[in-house]
Structure formats: structure tokens, C-alpha cells
């Protein structure tokens, strides 16, 4: 449901069915709502059968990359005699995204159950849930839920009498955006500085503590119990347009809409349905100008591109952007695009781990150039300089943080060039004073 708003008829609440229902937070409350049946069922299946069911569902990673989950699990080595690890990425930090927070706040056992099933499937006895440091309430709820799950036998040395050991460790982050990148997260859990690692080796070969590891997003893991309960075929059927994107997706909408919130839609729902029906449209008297559909790291879409765009992995790519983590930032005609792009660049400059030169220098330099354009001190050649820098920031670093900074800059210049020119020519009053 469109938490904190009532469910809209165009939504498909699966994950979000119990958002706002405090009774679903306890172990017994979750069992009354059908919880833990999927874990019991999974424990009676072989790990291979669980992976096959997830493969059949077409579930893809909900953290941003959209990699098929069942395939990712199948990369874990079998019979190697080494400990395996599952890491749940709950370091939700992508600007515009606030869905995992609600999953943990309202349905902690949904996530615990998903983690336990995934751990069984990949042969892991231990799962780390890495929660971002600012999520104090989700951490409190999760801590209580994990303790209860141990007390009720859903976790521990002998899960539901199956003889399987599954432990969950909650690890609290310290507030760095970069620790949401999976290899930086593994370093952080190991107690090292949160710098991304070069791949290969991929986590499935040598991940956490150099042992085989699978990293999944909160929303991905929370979807798994539903797939086990109702079958991969059912999940695959939740699809309106193309069979490569299946299931439901929680979309966090923020910005200039009447009802910001989390909306759960079937893959393939038109983006205009979401913005104009479910979210109640734009604020009074305003018109849609631009949307950043997948969290701040993806190219900006114009209103014309939004029209006719379908919300699934391929549909958003066809309109020149990416679904990413589906944190949708909606901007109306009052928005100063140059200012917004500067604000994003400043975020990336602050959050760069400074390991790679292109990112460390590029995020800071582009921020300074945008700042002087906004202060009325930009030069005509600054536009080309921004594009050149962005080119050097794309595809040339260990992780994609610098690509993420470049994407809104390049698309912003391509699509909203007159706004840059207005600052350069002096037609528009400076929005910032130079420090």
C-alpha cells in the first residue's frame, strides 16, 4: 500500500500488505498473517529446488542492478566444505529511496524469513544484515524481531527442528553512502575502511572474510517467502508488459506530488498512473518537469519521456534512464534544474571514498564548476568541461559512484541546456553567492 496513505486500487500489495499494521511486527502476529510457512516449506526442500523455484519466478535484484536472484544464488560453489555467508544489504542510502526502511519497520519477520530461506538455499549458516546507522527505529524493531525469532526456534542451531543452523547478525553501519556498495559493505563488516574492492574475484568466489558470499537487497529477500508460498509461476504472472521483469516493485515517490510515499505496483505499470493517480498528481497549479526514476544515480527524464514509460527494468531503459532502486524524485515547473544537479553533485563529492582519482577529483571539480555557474561566474567552456569530466568519470573506476555523479550531469545538460545557458549569459539571476 502507498504507506503512509491507504492502498490505491492500482497497487498490488504483496510486500507492503502489512505496512502500518503494528500487529505484524511480532513473531505470533506474523505467523497469524501466514508467516514462516514458507521457511518451513523451504527447509523440507533441497537447496537446489529452492533456487529453481526462485529462478522460475523471474525475481531480479531490487537494489538497483536488477540481476536475476536465482542465478546469483546458483553461482555459490557447492560441496566446497567452506563456510558460506549471506549478506543482506539494508544500507538503503540512495537519495530518493525509502522502501527498505518500511519493510524493516513494519514487517521485520518478512525479512528474517527471506534471509533464512536464502541462507538455506546458498548453504550459509550465517547471515549479516547491514543496517544503515541513521535507521534507529528499523534497528530497534529488527533487534527485537531477531531475538524473538531465536526464542521461537526460527533461527539458531536447529531451525524448526530441521537440524539446520541459521544465525542472523545485525550490523549497524556508520553513515557512509559508499557502504551500500556490496564490496565496500563486506570491508565494513570485516572492520576495514569501507572502500569498494576490485572485481574479480566476485563475492560468490571470495567475498566476506574471503569466503563465498551472496549479497541481496532487503526487498529482494522479503519477496522470497511469497515466492515459496505461492510458487514461482504465480510471481512470474505478476507482470503487465514484458516477461523479463516480473513481480511487484515498491516505488518510493518523493518531491512535488500530492501524496509522497511507498507504492507497490506490478512490473509494467505506466509511470503516469503512479504519478497522476496513485500519488494524486502534481501540487496545485504546477506541471511536471522532470523525474529521476531510480534514485539519484540515474539519468534524468523529461516530462515527455515519462509519458508512455512503463515501470519495469526494460521499460525505463527504453526511455533513456534506469529503474535502479526505484526511488522516484518528481520535480515540477518551479524546479531549477542547474541547482538540483549541483545539489546531487555535492552529495557525491561528500560521499566519494576518494580511492579512485577520477571520482575523488571529478565529483569535487564538477561540484565547483556547477557552483560557479549558479553564482553567475560560469564561462561558456564550462559546459564542455563538465561533459569531458563526466566522460572521464564513467566506466573508469572501481565502483559506480562516479558514474552516478556523471549521469545526472550529462543528462541534465542534454535535456535542460537552456537553463545552464541562462545562468551563463546572465539572463538568470545568480542562485548562489560565491564563497
Amino acid at each position, binding site marked *: 500500500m502507498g504507506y*503512509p496513505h491507504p492502498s490505491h486500487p492500482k497497487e498490488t500489495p504483496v510486500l507492503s500488505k502489512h505496512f502500518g499494521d503494528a500487529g505484524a511486527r511480532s513473531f505470533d502476529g506474523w505467523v497469524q498473517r501466514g508467516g514462516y510457512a514458507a521457511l518451513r516449506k523451504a527447509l523440507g526442500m533441497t537447496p537446489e529446488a529452492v533456487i529453481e523455484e526462485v529462478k522460475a519466478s523471474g525475481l531480479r535484484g531490487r537494489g538497483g542492478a536488477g540481476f536475476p536472484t536465482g542465478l546469483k544464488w546458483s553461482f555459490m560453489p557447492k560441496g566446497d566444505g567452506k563456510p558460506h555467508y549471506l549478506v543482506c544489504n539494508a544500507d*538503503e*542510502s540512495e*537519495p*530518493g*529511496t*525509502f522502501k527498505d*526502511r518500511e519493510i524493516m519497520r513494519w514487517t521485520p519477520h518478512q525479512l528474517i524469513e527471506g534471509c533464512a530461506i536464502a541462507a538455506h538455499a546458498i548453504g550459509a549458516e550465517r547471515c549479516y544484515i547491514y543496517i*544503515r546507522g*541513521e*535507521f*534507529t*527505529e528499523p534497528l530497534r524493531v529488527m533487534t527485537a524481531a531477531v531475538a524473538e525469532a531465536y526464542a521461537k526456534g526460527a533461527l539458531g542451531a536447529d531451525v524448526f527442528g530441521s537440524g539446520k543452523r541459521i544465525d542472523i547478525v545485525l550490523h549497524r553501519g556508520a553513515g557512509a*553512502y559508499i557502504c551500500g556498495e556490496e564490496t565496500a559493505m563486506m570491508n565494513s563488516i570485516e572492520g576495514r575502511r569501507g572502500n569498494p574492492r576490485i572485481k574479480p574475484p566476485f563475492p560468490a568466489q571470495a567475498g566476506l572474510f574471503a569466503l563465498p558470499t551472496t549479497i541481496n537487497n532487503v526487498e529482494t529477500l522479503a519477496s522470497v517467502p511469497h515466492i515459496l508460498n505461492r510458487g514461482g509461476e504465480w510471481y512470474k504472472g505478476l507482470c503487465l508488459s514484458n516477461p523479463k521483469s516480473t513481480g511487484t516493485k515498491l516505488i*518510493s*515517490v*518523493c*518531491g512535488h506530488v500530492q501524496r*509522497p*510515499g*511507498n507504492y507497490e505496483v506490478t512490473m509494467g505499470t505506466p509511470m503516469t498512473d503512479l504519478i497522476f493517480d496513485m500519488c494524486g498528481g502534481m501540487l496545485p497549479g504546477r506541471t511536471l518537469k522532470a523525474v529521476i526514476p531510480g534514485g539519484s544515480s540515474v539519468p534524468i527524464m523529461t516530462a515527455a519521456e515519462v509519458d508512455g514509460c512503463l515501470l519495469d527494468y526494460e521499460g525505463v531503459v527504453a526511455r533513456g534512464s534506469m529503474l535502479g532502486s526505484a*526511488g522516484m*524524485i518528481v520535480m515540477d515547473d518551479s524546479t531549477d534544474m542547474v541547482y538540483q544537479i549541483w545539489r546531487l553533485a555535492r*552529495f557525491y563529492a*561528500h*560521499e566519494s571514498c576518494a580511492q579512485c582519482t577520477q571520482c575523488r577529483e571529478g565529483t569535487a571539480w564538477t561540484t565547483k564548476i556547477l557552483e560557479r555557474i549558479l553564482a553567475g561566474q560560469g564561462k561558456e567552456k564550462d559546459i564542455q568541461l563538465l561533459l569531458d569530466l563526466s566522460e572521464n568519470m564513467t566506466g573508469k573506476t572501481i565502483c559506480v559512484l562516479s558514474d552516478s555523479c556523471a549521469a545526472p550531469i550529462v543528462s541534465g545538460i542534454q535535456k535542460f541546456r537552456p537553463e545552464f545557458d541562462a545562468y551563463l549569459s546572465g539572463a538568470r539571476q545568480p542562485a548562489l553567492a560565491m564563497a
Partner: protein
Amino acid sequence: MAALLRETGCKELGATSPDGRFTVAEVECLGACGFATPIMINDDFIESVTPERVPGILQGYK
């Protein structure tokens, strides 16, 4: 922001109030874009803050 500075008595961002109880800082992201403006006081998370709500919120921390 102005309301927070005024009500705590802090002169500017990063400075501590004369009574030593408050320091106001701006942070990049608290992960709650749908419930703007969010603020965090110690470990407490408060959403949809408006300037009018600030005096009441701070009352609990004085």
C-alpha cells in the same frame, strides 16, 4: 533550519548553544525523502518537521 538555530540558541551550523545542550548540523541524507523534512536528535527520528513544530519538539530535550 533557521527555526532550529533560533530555538536552540546556536549561532550557526556546527556551533554549540551557550547552554552547551545543542549543536545543529546539516547532514546529507536520513533516508526519509517521503517525509520531508526529517531531523534526528540523538537517536530519535522525527519526520515532517515544520518551523512551527520546532519549539514543541525541542521542549522535550531541554
